[in-house]
């Protein structure tokens, strides 16, 4: 009887702990999971400033500008449907260049500029970030087109 009783307490505690953990996880995922947006989605759905997202697209040719401090860059990201301005402070990956694909982690500020905290450029010619599949960049017209 005693053992049963004590087992029951443990089981209840365990269950409560697990349910609490599950709820915590659900709420944290709701806040912290960064959804992937292409500039077209940003335009269509809107993203509130400060919400962490991943922005993916191509770096528009001719849009890359270096700020006077030498460590901040400004560039435009496009998916052919829309173009959004972005900026990044830090050491950009070597394969980050104009006309190349990029996935940026960060959030929009109030002025609508995407403040990237991290840039993930594609590693090589064969690699496309999973999120960018189906998008192609036309080097002649500098436009994006949907591949599918």
């Amino acid at each position, binding site marked *: 009887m*005693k*053992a049963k009783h*004590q087992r029951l*307490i*443990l089981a209840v*505690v*365990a269950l409560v*702990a*697990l349910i609490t*953990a*599950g709820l*915590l*996880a659900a709420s*944290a*995922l709701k*806040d*912290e*999971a*960064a*959804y*992937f947006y292409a500039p077209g989605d940003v335009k269509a759905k809107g993203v509130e400033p400060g919400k*962490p997202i*991943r922005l993916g697209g191509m770096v528009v040719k001719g849009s890359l500008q*270096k700020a006077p*401090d*030498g*460590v901040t860059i400004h560039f435009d990201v496009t998916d052919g449907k829309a173009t959004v301005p972005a900026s990044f*402070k*830090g*050491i*950009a990956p*070597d*394969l980050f260049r104009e006309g190349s694909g990029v996935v940026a*982690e960060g959030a929009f500020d109030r002025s609508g500029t995407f403040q990237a905290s991290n840039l993930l450029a594609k*590693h*090589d010619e064969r*690699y496309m*970030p*999973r*999120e960018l599949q189906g998008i192609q960049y036309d080097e002649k017209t500098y436009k994006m087109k949907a591949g599918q």
Partner: protein
Amino acid sequence: MIAEAGLAALWLAASLALLQLALAAIGLAGGKTELLSAVRPVAVAQGGLTAIAFALLIALFLRSDMSVLLVVTNSHSMKPWLYKFAGTWGNHEGSMLLWVTVMGVAGAAVALFERALRRETHMATLGGQAAISLGFYAFLLFASNPFARIDPPPADGQGLNPLLQDPGLAFHPPTLYLGYVGLSVAFSFAVGALLTRQVDAAFARAMRPWVLGAWILLTLGITAGSYWAYYELGWGGWWFWDPVENASLMPWLAATALLHSVTVLATRDALRAWTVMLAVIAFSMSMVGTFLVRSGILTSVHAFAVDPQRGTFILALLGVYIGGALALFGWRVGAVREGAPFELVSRETMLVVNNLLLSVILGLVLIGTLYPLMTEAFGHKVSVGAPYFDRIAGPVALTLMIVMILGPLTRWRRDRMREVTRRIAVPMAVGAIALVALAVLAWGKIGVLPFLGLVIALAVAVGSVAPLWKRNLRRTPLFTWGMVIAHLGCAVSLAGMACDSAFTVEKLVAARPGEVVETAGWTLRFKQILPLAGDNWTALQADMEASRDGGEPVLMHPQSRFFASPPTTTTEAALLTRWNGQLYVVLGQEADAGRWQLRIWWKPFVTLIWLGGFLIALGGAMALIGRERRGWLLKWRARKAEEAFA
């Protein structure tokens, strides 16, 4: 010839595994006990053959035999021999061969050295080990043959990923692998015990050293991997919550829980079903991790060859082994008697709470890792990163650390609240003082988690040595010392993590050669940029002089390295280690004419993170040696007594 011999050894080992399984199955189920005596020699032979196959693959790599496809795609005759050697397992096929080799050798070790287990359970365990091995042999032989030839042989190989040309990466994956696969022994023990229904304290005592051994290697592997990512990726971070890292963390969490529950089972004969369950889960997590990394269904910075066909094969193995073991668990565990009871205030309860919290962390990490996969099934693409994991796992881990103070200071079976409170008074007081002092000094300047982390780290550091209080230190058993050191390691590591996130100073500048950059009390003189060439790379190197408080300047050389084949750029961060922290300098790109991007971090006490990890592993090793030596001593004394009696 060598390649053919290797393949033959592998086939022979696979057929011996089949024989081993058949002998054990017929012997146990059919009651033909005379067959059982053949199981152990077969297991030893099988282990030996896998070791031979692996040695032959190493020989092929060292000789740069370009008629073997794997050598061609992963090696080059001009490479330093160390990387030829490490190249053996720096690829899919080689690492899978390492996997079956560890599995085979571990099985042989269980056959040779395991004496504490009952005979039937021992045989069932060896049968289980053979059954798991068989699946991986099939995977190796049918879907990833490491000995395949290429005809005609090319003149030379295609090199190795330059990121892999690093002594750290050459040796941390195999360490991790030894840990992963070492857990297969615990899995087989659980399966064997379920089959023979012998889950008791003796079983736990037999299983404990194997779990401990695998856990030590996992700890070392994760620690080394974290340090590798820290200095090689050049991002200044030491843990990125990347799927590959999570894949190594999850088995560790399960193994840590298992290590504690197996102690409860060994000492108090309680938590029988739960311990068996954890043993199954621990190795399952190893397999799930391998699957996630190899199948490419989750994207990661540590890229591996993506091959859906191989993914399907591993998934099938996963289904058969994990599903099978869990079904066996459901079917048989009802027959396992309930263990001994214990009071609510007792060490058992503390260890149950430890297990519960570890399981919660494991579940949270698993959910976070798989969440992108779940949402993708519904058409949303998300990524889950550090913000989720820090926010969710941080508080639970800190709670766990508090329980870590309580556990060792609580008695087995029954204790009194008042007594426990008295014993934890000193660590709690230290924690309280630290809390007040930090609140006065740094309130509002550092985040909540690092703040609590520092406080709890201090309390745990004191609490972890408290079990030695008033004891004769020379007569304290080695395994008690092991526990103390391992827990102290946790405190040290936590302190390092908290210091890193609370006090790191970062500076990002574009500087010209000749300029001086000042940050966090350091003066860095950027002298010049030089081109440099290595064996298979060219680099730009910054020459810098770092000094503090007018002290002797130290040279630092951050590099940006370019490898020609395959074309890759890597950053080689320059690290300057002092007792109180590390200076971390990364050279970026040329910002504009003559100015170079420099990223500088001063990270106070960051090295404690890995020192702590090392202490944890050391504690484990002490516990392992202590237990084994004691068992040996007891046996020796018993024999002496017998002789004296005769």
